[in-house]
């Protein structure tokens, strides 16, 4: 096992140089990290090697990209949320057994097998983070955005959630209870946002169209469109 701290200063001093000259001969040596000079080219080269060796099927890679670009994303989670707002029995199931309720709508899979849905109310606001890596309920809302994986968000979400929410433009009243869910194990969390006041007449589909990824992570509320905007 490498202790990594050894040589940290030396590595920091040469990091810029390492970017210019990738050095795979030291791939096992973390004092001299592998840094590709051109990731697009390096990725292409690695893929062609893996394909030639029969280690990966390029069609399967296409299908993974297609799955996350076109099939799995926040629209899925929005349908779950809208159903919960629309159907009290579904909401009860969703809060009691997130995975089962989500599977009812046809979404399941990795990082979704054990999912807990936490409900935002006028009194309680939930926020999701992974301080150790990038755990995120991706079968329901897709791959995480860059900010969710960023050091800034992962650092401060637990120590200053109200400050983080202010950066997102969400100012919570002092008396609201903030619960931060640090998903560092194999449980995944999804926020059931508060249904916006004035949405009583909306159809389930129209409700789903209002629900954003940010609201399901807990950094935003769901808002009705501006007056005059078409649903």
């Amino acid at each position: 096992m490498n202790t990594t701290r050894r040589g940290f200063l030396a590595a920091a001093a040469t990091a810029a140089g390492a970017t210019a000259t990738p050095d795979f001969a030291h791939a096992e040596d973390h004092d001299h990290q592998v840094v590709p000079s051109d990731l697009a080219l390096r990725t292409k080269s690695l893929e062609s090697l893996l394909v030639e060796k029969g280690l990966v099927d390029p069609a399967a890679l296409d299908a993974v990209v297609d799955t996350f670009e076109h099939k799995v994303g926040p629209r899925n989670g929005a349908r779950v949320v809208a159903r919960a707002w629309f159907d009290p029995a579904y909401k009860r199931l969703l809060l009691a057994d997130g995975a089962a309720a989500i599977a009812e709508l046809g979404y399941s899979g990795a990082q979704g097998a054990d999912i807990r849905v936490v409900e935002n109310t006028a009194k309680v606001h939930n926020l999701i983070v992974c301080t150790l890596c990038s755990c995120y309920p991706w079968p329901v809302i897709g791959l995480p955005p860059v900010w969710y994986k960023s050091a800034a968000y992962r650092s401060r979400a637990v120590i200053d959630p109200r400050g983080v929410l202010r950066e997102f433009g969400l100012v919570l009243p002092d008396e609201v209870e903030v619960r931060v869910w640090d998903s560092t194990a194999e449980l995944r969390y999804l926020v059931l946002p508060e249904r916006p006041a004035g949405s009583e007449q909306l159809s389930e589909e129209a409700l789903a169209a209002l629900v954003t990824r940010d609201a399901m992570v807990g950094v935003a509320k769901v808002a009705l469109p501006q007056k005059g905007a078409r649903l």
Partner: protein
Amino acid sequence: MNGVHDRGGEQDMGPIQYEKDEPVFHAAWEGRVYAMNRAMGAWRKWNLDASRHNGELRNPADYFRMSYYERMFAGLTELSVKSGLVTLAEIESGKPAPESTKATPPFTTADAAAPGRYRASARRQAAVSPRFAVGQQVRARNINPIGHTRLPRYARAKSGTIDRDHGVFLFPDTNAHYLGEKPQHVYSVRFSARELWGEQAKPQDSVYLDMWDDYLEPA
């Protein structure tokens, strides 16, 4: 391992950079790296915890300089070489070694369309008794292992309350190093924000962490 990946509670990383209408992948190579990482994982030559630990070994300067998918590319390359699926010489040349035989990829287009097959669940059916009960006061142990752990530094030696018993899961601290799965209960533990951060926190606020049995002791 106490490393820079363990971000919770740091305050020096500046404002959060929000991108409006962010694409799933910012460049085609990011999607290819993500997909290759999934597909190569299907060889089961390493497990998720080992792969996380490999990422934690990245030195801090590189960790902060590299993007998420750059780190994934580096990790995939390192694990592929370490596990013997490819050699360094092959990566440098981009060509299979002359003596290398052609394998059959275990990860298919059908797998790709079903994210449920991307990775095995960490939940175990083992009959292991829980050491703690819902409502019980517990303290996170003050441990500083040099290996992999999912007990963040900011929670160590802090007291909380068991909120829920999630059932039995394999233990990442041993699994990452291929020292066995050591299945045990994982609990949702509520830590008050004041316990973690002192008087600057609101008294009603809290952080919930999922904690393995081995991370906890009675308070």
